């Protein structure tokens, strides 16, 4: 089950329909100080990166006021994009949720300590309802099209009739009085002439009447609008078509999801406690929380690979600020701001590599292609490395080898990895398993243009991995 197409759908829909939506309370004056247009899009985007999320956590992550966020979410709930659940819970209940979050590879710093103090508070959770979003978007498009088409076909207009003799006009409401028993036409009340339907006349001899002119202009406008709509919503339509036959991601309600996430965590054979307590430190604030389902992480669970993957995940969000795919256009150069901005936030663990990092930072000012290359090299090294790991568990030599293969920015990872490996044993690797799905995902997100390639590439790599493992 892949979230990606659905997330893309949500993002496109958000930009198409909710871009200029202002979210404000009923009692707030129209000239409120904050013009929060675009907030809707941000909230939806954030939700695509999460599953069930506590609203307070989301607010914190988005640096929004809880009230504001709640208002936005209520709006989305009315729009049927989001499902929400409210429940009264103690600190313990919150912990269950935290455990579930941790189990999905997510970690939210700061919430842990706060939760201990809470006593039976009402907590709200929210989650995208992908199946419903699919329907809602489709329905919305259908209604839009229908409305314009109806008006174009003048489907709902009242027919008017004109007497060609005396020029008197009648509307269809007068029909009952106009019927004559003699023939099948309407007859004028004044002169008993046969009435002509107005649109027929219009078609017959384009009258230069001002009224008609206005009507024709309106028609033009409608046609134009319809055309524009079709043109501008094309990506959305395509995405809808792509998603049509895919099963929508289903998270179930909050309890079910928690239970599932918990079970999945148990199945993966490591303790939640260790994960959740360790990760916050490891990830820091810069780590984008991307909880994924249990299934995703089962996909790639080769011993030895995970550690590497984990490192990639760690560095990904920090080294490259993930650009949403629709923002990246052909030939667009990713600047330093887009990638290096988050750099200083790297983990404490990596502090020893800060010098390297500065250097790599500079390197990364280059084009995207470098990034691709880097990834390719990385994967190559990954395979190689795994091979060697099978043969001997000696690390340092591998690093040297890998170093030769990889580019400059890559060095850092390898180096770091070796260090980590020295510290941690096998259990550690298994625990990182969930993040494998993530790394591929974030890579794809970062680079829309090579999206298809990337996924192919991924698959290939996976195949090799399996064969060799």
């Amino acid at each position, binding site marked *: 089950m892949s979230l990606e197409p659905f997330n893309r759908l949500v993002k496109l829909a958000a930009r198409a329909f909710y871009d200029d939506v202002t979210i404000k309370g009923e009692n707030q004056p129209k000239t409120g100080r904050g013009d929060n247009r675009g907030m809707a899009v941000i909230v939806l985007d954030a939700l695509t990166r999460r599953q069930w999320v506590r609203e307070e956590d989301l607010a914190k992550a988005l640096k929004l006021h809880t009230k504001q966020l709640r208002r936005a979410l209520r709006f989305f709930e009315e729009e049927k994009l989001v499902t929400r659940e409210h429940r009264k819970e103690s600190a313990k209940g919150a912990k269950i949720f935290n455990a579930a979050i941790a189990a999905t590879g997510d970690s939210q710093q700061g919430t842990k300590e706060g939760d201990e103090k809470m006593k039976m508070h009402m907590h709200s959770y929210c989650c995208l309802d992908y199946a419903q979003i699919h329907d809602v978007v489709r329905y919305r498009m259908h209604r839009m099209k229908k409305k314009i088409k109806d008006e174009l076909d003048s489907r709902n207009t009242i027919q008017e009739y004109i007497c060609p003799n005396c020029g008197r006009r009648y509307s269809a409401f007068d029909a*009952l009085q106009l019927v004559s028993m003699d023939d099948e036409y309407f007859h004028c009340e004044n002169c008993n002439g046969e009435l002509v339907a107005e649109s027929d006349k219009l078609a017959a001899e384009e009258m230069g009447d001002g009224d008609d002119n206005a009507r024709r202009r309106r028609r033009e406008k409608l046609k134009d609008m319809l055309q524009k709509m079709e043109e501008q919503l094309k990506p959305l339509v395509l995405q809808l078509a792509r998603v049509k036959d895919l099963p929508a991601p289903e998270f179930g309600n909050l309890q079910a999801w928690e239970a599932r996430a918990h079970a999945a965590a148990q199945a993966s054979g490591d303790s939640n406690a260790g994960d959740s307590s360790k990760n916050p430190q490891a990830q820091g604030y810069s780590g984008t929380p991307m909880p994924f389902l249990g299934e995703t992480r089962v996909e790639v669970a080769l011993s030895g690979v995970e550690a590497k993957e984990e490192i990639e995940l760690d560095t990904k969000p920090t080294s490259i600020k993930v650009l949403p795919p629709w923002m990246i256009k052909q030939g667009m150069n990713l600047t330093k701001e887009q990638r290096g901005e988050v750099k200083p936030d790297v983990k404490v663990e990596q502090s020893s590599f800060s010098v390297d990092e500065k250097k790599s930072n500079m390197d990364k000012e280059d084009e995207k292609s470098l990034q691709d290359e880097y990834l390719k090299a990385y994967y190559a090294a990954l395979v190689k490395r795994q091979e060697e790991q099978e043969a001997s568990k000696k690390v340092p030599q591998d690093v040297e080898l890998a170093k030769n293969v990889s580019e400059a920015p890559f060095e850092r990872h390898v180096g770091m990895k070796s260090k980590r490996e020295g510290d941690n044993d096998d259990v550690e690797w298994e625990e990182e398993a969930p993040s494998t799905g993530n790394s591929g995902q974030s890579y794809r997100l970062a680079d829309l243009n090579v999206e298809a390639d990337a996924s192919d590439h991924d698959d290939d790599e996976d195949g090799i991995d399996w064969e060799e493992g």
Partner: protein
Amino acid sequence: MFFHITLERNMQLHPRHFGPHLRDKLVAKLMKDVEGTCSGRHGFVVAITGVEDIGKGLIREGTGFVTFPVKYQAVVFRPFKGEILEAVVTMVNKMGFFAEAGPVQIFVSNHLIPDDMEFQSGDMPNYTTSDGSVKIQKDSEVRLKIIGTRVDATEIFCIGTIKDDFLGVINDPGAAA
């Protein structure tokens, strides 16, 4: 759409009804007066379901008639724009067809009939599709959508369309016979 609402009316009762069955007489007269009428505001009064309250009568000077304020509950029928109704076709001509849904007259003009239906004149004028599978003639039952209403003080007239999804003939009198 049907509504069950409470209405009020001042009833004038002739002095000859004053007696043991005054109330019954009053209610009977109310039904006779009100049922089947149409008010622009509430629509057609279909039936009176109950009398809630009869106020104190007031004797009119000079005539001897007594006026009672009566509160009663009634089922009313009022067509709305956008409403879907089922109606019986009463007349078909070149300009379209007329149909009745209870007391309401509805006119469907020919440009609100699907384009694939053509008018066939003759003994039994009708609108028929080119393959002849669907036929609208007198006494056909059609499902239509109201796109306009004209509400007078005593009359409601509607314009309908069958040019939309799921609208059109719902039973064919010819086939049933």
